[in-house]
Each structure stands twice: as C-alpha cells, then as structure tokens.
C-alpha cells in the first residue's frame, strides 16, 4: 500500500493530504489521538445498522483515510445518511466495530465518545440555526469548548481569538463579516443560512467535516462557494466527507467516491 492509498487500496489524488495535521486546535483538550502516516481515520469492520428488523447499512470493511475529500453517492434510502450519522458518532453500530483515529468507539453516552465527537462535525441537509445572531451561531462551537458565553463578546479573555475565528470562518464561506455578524437567524436567505451553518462548523477547525446534501436547495453560486470552502478546509488538513446527489458538483471536488446502494458500500 502506498502513502496515497487507503488501507483498502483506494487511490487518492497525489495532492490529497493523507494524514491529519497534528496540533490542530480541534484536538486540543479532547485527547483524540492523531493518525500518523497512512493509518485510516475511520475503520468500519462488520458494521451493521438496523431500523427495527430492516438492515439499512451492512459494511463488512471500510477504511477512510485522514485528509482529502471523500464523496458519497447513491439512491435515496440507500443508507448514505445512516453512514454519515455513524461517522459523526451520533449513532452506534448494531453490530461490528467502528474505530475512529485508531480507537474503538464505545457507547454513545460515554464521556470518551463525547470527547471524540468534538473533533467531528456534521452539516445537516437542512441546517438549524440557533435563535441568535450570526456571530453567536458561528461562535457557539468555540464557546462550548471554552465554557465561555459568546454573548459577552465585547469583553473578556479569549474574545479577540473568538472574534477572529468567527470572521475567518465567515470569510471562508464568502460571507462579509461586517455585513453578517450582527444579523439575526431570521434575516438570512436559505443559501446564507446554509453558509452560516457551515461557518459555524469551520470556526472550531474540526478534524472531520461531514456534509449531508449541502447544495440540495442552493443556487449554482452558493454551491460553488460551499465547494470552495470544502477545498480550503481540506487543504488545511480537515477530512471532508460529502453526501450529494449532484455528481457534476461532487466529482471534481472529491478525491474518492463511495457508492452506497441498498445498504452496501462500494468504492
């Protein structure tokens, strides 16, 4: 296996970073180990997820390397979102083992899983914005990590860093901070809300960014901005995994495409 292949042998583009950049702020204080060399970030072995009696996902073996952009395609009801929720550590396999950064993921309610979950984030297809200002939405992830209220952003220790991170995240999704910082959630269009939700996830520099149909209800321009932001964070070492029906949008973006159909994963 070369340095630019996953353990399961899937090739990645030559410029795709295969290892997470250690020292990422997302890992600070979480105790999440770095993956080094070409150790996969995710390893799924014999993973089965059921809804009642119905098996919605059955993955004998899947490795996903750290870094780069991985696309996930497939028909509706094929198991894409189920896979994404497993990777986001929001659901646990009914059977089999999920390893993240070399560590077996335990029960969802455990403190260790909560720690691991802090290095992963998921952008929902229809994102929910907190009933607050754009600033408070984008700073929320930072505030839960620091334990400081973001509503007192005009003063206090660490406020400058938070403000800088918020501005940087908004600029990454091509929203002018001077225009948007003080806007309330109900003053945003659908595309702007989607980009603010993405900025809220980029502000805390996650180790893994999962996106579920991020362009489903966006115009071409907004979809291009989302793609630019995904490329930018992938270049910084974040592992990006995107579910999309829009193959024209996804294929130029993703170094690897996984096909999920009837609960089976190929690619």
């Amino acid at each position, binding site marked *: 296996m070369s340095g630019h292949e996953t353990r399961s042998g899937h090739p990645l583009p030559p410029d795709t970073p295969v290892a997470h950049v250690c020292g990422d702020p997302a890992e600070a204080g979480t105790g999440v180990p770095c993956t080094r060399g070409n150790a996969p970030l995710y390893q799924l072995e014999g993973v089965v997820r059921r809804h009642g009696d119905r098996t919605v996902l059955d993955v004998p073996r899947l490795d996903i390397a750290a870094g780069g952009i991985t696309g996930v395609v497939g028909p509706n009801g094929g198991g894409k979102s189920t896979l994404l929720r497993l990777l986001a550590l929001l659901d646990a396999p009914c059977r089999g083992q999920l390893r993240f950064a070399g560590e077996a993921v335990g029960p969802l309610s455990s403190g260790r899983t909560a720690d691991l979950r802090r290095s992963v*984030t998921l952008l929902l297809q*229809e994102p*929910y914005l907190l009933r607050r200002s754009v600033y408070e939405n984008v700073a929320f992830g930072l505030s839960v990590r620091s334990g400081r209220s973001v509503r007192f952003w005009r003063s206090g220790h660490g406020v400058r860093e938070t403000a800088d991170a918020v501005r940087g995240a908004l600029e990454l999704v091509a929203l002018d901070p001077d225009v948007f910082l003080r806007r309330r959630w109900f003053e945003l269009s659908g595309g702007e809300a989607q980009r603010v939700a993405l900025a809220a996830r980029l502000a*805390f520099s996650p180790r893994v960014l999962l996106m579920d149909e991020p362009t489903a209800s966006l115009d071409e321009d907004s979809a291009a901005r989302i793609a630019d932001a995904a490329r930018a964070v992938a270049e910084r070492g974040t592992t990006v995994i995107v579910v999309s029906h829009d193959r024209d949008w996804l294929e130029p973006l993703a170094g690897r495409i996984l096909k999920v159909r009837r609960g089976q994963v190929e690619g």
Partner: protein
Amino acid sequence: MDYLIDGLATALRLLAAGDAETFSAVWITLAASGMSIAACLAIGAPLGFLIGYHDFPGRRAVRIAVDTALCFPTVVIGLLVYLLLSRQGPLGDLGLLFTIPGMSVGLTLLGIPIVMAMTALAVEQADARLRLTLLTLGANGRQVLFATLWETRYHLMLAGVAAFGRIVSEVGISMMVGGNIKWHTRTITTAIALETGKGDYALGIALGLVLLAIALLLNLVLAGLRRRAGR
C-alpha cells in the same frame, strides 16, 4: 344599580389616594406570587426539560400525573400545605404557617405542574434538528440542556407568565395557609372575598380592578411572547 356605581367611584378614589389597606393587599400578593414563581421556574423548568427530552420507563405515567396536577383544586393544596406547616405537622417547627413564605410554598405547589407541563411540551415540540445541531457543534449533556432551554426561552417565559396568572388569582391556598391576616397575609383575592362578605364593595371593586390590570398586563406579555415564540 346605584350601589355598583357608588362602589366603583369609591374604589377609584381608594386607588387614586393610595389607600394603605388596598396597597398592602397588592404588595402581599405580589411578594407571595413573586417568591413562588421564582421557585416554580427553578424547580419546574429542569423537571419539565427532563420529561420532555428524555425517554425513560414510566415517562408516560409521569406526564399523566403532571397533567392531572394541573387540575388540582387549590383548597386541597391549601389543606395539604396547612397540615404540613401546622404546629403538629412535620414542618411545623419552621413556623411558616400564616406567613408570606408559607403561602409561597402552597402557591409553588400550584405553579410547578404548570411550568413542568409547558416546559415539557416546549421541549417536545422544539425542532428535531436542534439536539443534532448542538451535538454536532460539540455540546455536552449539560450544554445541550442549557442551550435547549435558551432556544425555547419564549415558551419558558410563556410558562412562567401562565403560572403567575394562575398563582396571583387563586384564593384557596392564600386563605387556608395565609389565614387572611390584615397587613400580614391578606392578598387581593382573600380581601375581595372578605370585603364582599362584609358588604364593603368599594374595596372589593378596587382590588378587583388591580387584579384585572395585572391580568391585562399578563395577557399583553403573553401575546408578545407568543408572537416571538412563533417566529
């Protein structure tokens, strides 16, 4: 008809002149209600969150019990608290019977089910994406609780205002636990009941007008909160 008009005129004069007895009842009412609504929110909101957010064995039974408590007759609560606080009762040593804090205990028992039921409903009806969003942004269990309560803040205020409306206008608990002692535990409602019995309609009408003004204010606040909660 004349006695009604005379009563209203006298009532307005009492209010305009700042009649001490009238305003003593208003102050005692607001003190007892204020104390109890603070306790209702401190106890009822977290409990309401628990039964609205978590699925646990017996949750349905707890919801039914809380909904049943909404219809609890105030005189029964008054009797229960009276027995607890009376000299022979288990809490008799606290000396709370016939005091404003004692009345607040009873009024809190009246308000807690209202706050619990409305908080649980608000949390149940909150957008299903809220919890997922909080988790994917890295919130832990405690942060999910506080952020959810903040997101449903207008519904919680609605619960507080609704509970306050019920507490401020009840008579059974105030009469039994407070004892309707002039200058000490006589509230608006117990004063109205007493003065009407004595045939002194003017004071009753004056206090009734104050109660109506409070009700109007509460309803204006409720309408504003409903509008913001629905946004």
